[in-house]
């Protein structure tokens, strides 16, 4: 009876662990994919950090975790500074944007939210779908709208990549002219052979979301590797205590 119940409890917890309720297009993430995280950091600093801050994350923590900086080698600090710190911040500072609150209010109608916990507050799927759902719309102040969150205040931060790859999906027929312009733009940009090949939009967004997922929960890998050791130790101890229990209860008749 007792063994069956424990087994069922375990199955219950396992099913909770594996069940992942999601309604939108799912995203495949890998928190151990260091290259993806590093690319994500690059994209974030290039496309997002102008407006959005990561107020709970420090540059040096990011550097050490993503193996850009070595904790014991101060010369690597410069590598972090050169590649990811675009403001006057020190590497021990948290990642803050230089956008003034008043200006952001005037431009967007509300200050851009901090993104440290965006994945935990929404979900990785939410952010992924949101970033992929921009389309051209003349009626909006920035010329783009979002089909996932209607009339969003944010302009499309990845517009350059989208234009280069012609990845805007046109929802309205009135946008034909604009898309024509974009296709011209595409021809122009590709004629310049010295440019590196433009990345595919889905991959950029996946890397970005992967990076933001790491930012939302930076201790996750550490936690899970420690967890395996703790659980293993407990199982071993349980086995020995079980043998001891058998010994002690052996002389009690049923």
């Amino acid at each position: 009876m007792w063994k069956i119940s424990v087994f069922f409890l375990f199955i219950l917890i396992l099913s909770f662990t594996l069940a992942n309720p999601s309604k939108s297009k799912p995203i495949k993430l890998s928190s151990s994919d260091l290259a993806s995280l590093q690319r994500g950091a690059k994209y974030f600093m290039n496309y997002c950090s102008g407006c959005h801050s990561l107020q709970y994350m420090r540059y040096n923590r990011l550097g050490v975790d993503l193996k850009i900086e070595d904790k014991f080698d101060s010369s690597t600090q410069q590598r972090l500074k050169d590649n990811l710190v675009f403001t006057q911040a020190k590497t021990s500072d948290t990642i803050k944007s230089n956008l003034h609150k008043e200006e952001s209010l005037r431009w967007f109608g509300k200050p851009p939210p901090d993104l440290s916990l965006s994945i935990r507050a929404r979900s990785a799927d939410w952010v992924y779908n949101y970033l992929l759902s921009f389309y051209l719309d003349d009626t909006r102040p920035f010329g783009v709208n979002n089909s996932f969150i209607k009339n969003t205040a944010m302009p499309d931060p990845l517009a350059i990549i989208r234009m280069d790859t012609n990845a805007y999906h046109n929802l309205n027929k009135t946008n034909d002219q604009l898309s024509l312009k974009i296709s011209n733009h595409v021809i122009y940009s590709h004629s310049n052979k010295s440019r590196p090949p433009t990345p595919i939009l889905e991959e950029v967004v996946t890397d970005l979301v992967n990076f933001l997922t790491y930012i939302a929960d930076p201790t996750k890998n550490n936690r899970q590797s420690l967890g395996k050791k703790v659980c293993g130790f407990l199982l071993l101890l349980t086995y020995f205590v079980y043998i001891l229990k058998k010994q002690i209860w052996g002389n009690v008749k049923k």
Partner: protein
Amino acid sequence: MRIAALRRTDKKLITKNRVNWLSERLPINEYIRQHLTQYYLPKNLNFWYFFGFLSLFTFFLQVVTGIWLTLFYTPTPEGAFNSIEMIMRDIPYGWLLRYLHSSGASVFFILIYAHIFRSLLYGSYKKPRELVWLLGVCLYIILLLEAFLGYLLPWGQTSYWASQIGTSLLDSIPKIGHTLTLWIRGNNVVAGETLHRFFAFHVIAIPLSLIFIIRLHLIALHKVGCNNPEGISIQTKTCLHNKTLSKVPFHPYYTIKELLALLIFLFIFSVIVFFVPEMHGYFLEANNFIPADPLLTPDHIQPLWYLAPFYGVLCVIPNKTLGILVMGGVIFMLLMLPWLDRNPVRSMRNRGYYSRFALANFILSFSLLSYISTTVFTPNKVIFVQILLLNYFLFFLLMPFYTKYEKNKPLPQSLCGK
């Protein structure tokens, strides 16, 4: 050689003297005898009996991790959310302490529910253990309060609005309601003052009263002795006809079993803490990762799962005052249980089918009530929850009748020779 041996015996003597010195002044030996080595328990206690000890363990775990968290936590609206993120990121192993504490709260309630279910299953609330049951229900109520107060401390959106709703309940008490709400909140809305007093109550006042009542709960239990799955009273320590024991001393028999149970529990608990601390929004809600904003009410205020049944009751009763009365009734019924049950047999093993069916129905109703209350309410769900609530009350209100007229099985004479 001889000198060394002498020194060794000297040392032994000194330690013995010190132990003697202490035991002459403190009743250590008596205590160990009374509560461990000569405290006898029925030998057939099964795994349902370990949840009491596991709850006690979790309580102390909460106290210890809680003390650590208060070292870094700032109970102000400006600092609360930030200090928790600081604990999670900048403080070495801060995340472990925080997850132990936050998952610990939910796990505590799972253990408590299993513990209560055990009492219902084997009739541990019946004479002579009524007081043990009453103290236990008091502990459950205080624990709900403790969890509610602690839930405001992260100062996230869900914390803030759940507390806003929770404290506004008092407002509908006639005459004194408004003053009382103002007094509890320290402000017209939930604000910094509320956070300060909730913090004080969560870390000092309520845990102190919990320790006191847990002690009473245990004293009362050790006075009347432990029930057993057969639900029969065992007076003698041995059975005469085949000289086998029906009771065994707590130590070493149950200490080793409790240790085994503790390790299995810790394994499951570690899986939660290290791999799914959020439990997909049941233990830590997504909305609570957004700092509290008094100007922005969320679309759907999702209560924590252990507060959900009470929140659900309020949602499905159209009149607010009536809703609060029904919510009080839900708990009052638990207190009345020992006097509603008129069946002389304790354990469900020996009871008739009416009681078994009623208990199954009760458990199912309460679980469904809790589950549905964590989701968004629709008109259909409201009716369904009302039916479940009716089921809950019928379990108690019909109990005097079905327990009186059901057909019981014959009771076993002893625990021996099976």
